[in-house]
């Protein structure tokens, strides 16, 4: 129950952060990616802001034996760089550059009642399904 409340609050903070940083404006994201045109470094500053908090906090948090409300940390287990990681990231970047949306802003964009958000969420899920179909081992 408490973990559910934390998930909701954490989502609210995350969504407010995305909106405050104007990251739900896809043109702002595209302008960050447009280094030879209307370059807007704001997205880089969002990452600097997020990383300066998260890096320090994670150091302390991950020294603990377990999270406060759960028995263990759920962390990714893979540590090596493989072709699937790089190919997937490259494909994601193409979609990001075509649309101006990554998954977070696609969801928070619903707060603007934007039809673009609905299209993004539906097609992102289509992409998930296709990837599971093609790449999951039977």
């Amino acid at each position: 129950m408490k973990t559910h409340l934390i998930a909701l609050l954490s989502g609210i903070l995350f969504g407010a952060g995305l909106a405050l940083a104007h990251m739900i404006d896809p043109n702002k994201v595209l302008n960050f990616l447009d280094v030879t045109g209307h370059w807007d470094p704001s997205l880089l500053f969002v990452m600097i802001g997020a990383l300066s908090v998260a890096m320090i906090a994670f150091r302390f948090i991950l020294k603990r034996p377990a999270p406060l409300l759960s028995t263990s940390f759920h962390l990714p287990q893979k540590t090596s760089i493989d072709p699937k990681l790089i190919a997937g990231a490259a494909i994601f970047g193409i979609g990001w550059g075509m649309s101006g949306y990554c998954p977070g802003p696609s969801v928070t964009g619903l707060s603007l009642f934007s039809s673009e958000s609905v299209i993004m969420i539906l097609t992102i899920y289509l992409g998930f399904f296709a990837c599971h179909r093609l790449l999951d081992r039977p």
Partner: protein
Amino acid sequence: MENFTPFSALAGGALIGISSAMLLFFNGRIAGISGIMNGVFYAPKNDKVWRLLFLAGLVIGGLFLGAFAPGFNTPRQGYPIVLLGIGGFLVGFGTRMANGCVSGHGVCGIARLSIRSIAATLTFIASGMLTVYVIRHLLELTA
């Protein structure tokens, strides 16, 4: 430079950092949006509710900001729907294949100094920049 907003970017980023730290500290979970979205369908049954609540929070957080500052963000109009639809599909496919997006790799992964996440983040930023160059400057599909 176009409409550079460093202060709201840093402050918004800090909120995202606090949110990620909170989810890890209390629940032991990584705030990676693509993974959270995917789990709504693919995680075990008892591992779904928190995901839906987090995603609902993402929308509520946006609504809060909009209530405090009406007109702070406005929806984009008239963007080619084909770019959006194909783009969304590739975002879904690619983030699943790479196990993460800007939040999971770019924030949480880099904060843990994961080599995989640093490599993924550099790759998707580079491929995003190349894509925007092709769309805006070579093909001139959008302004």
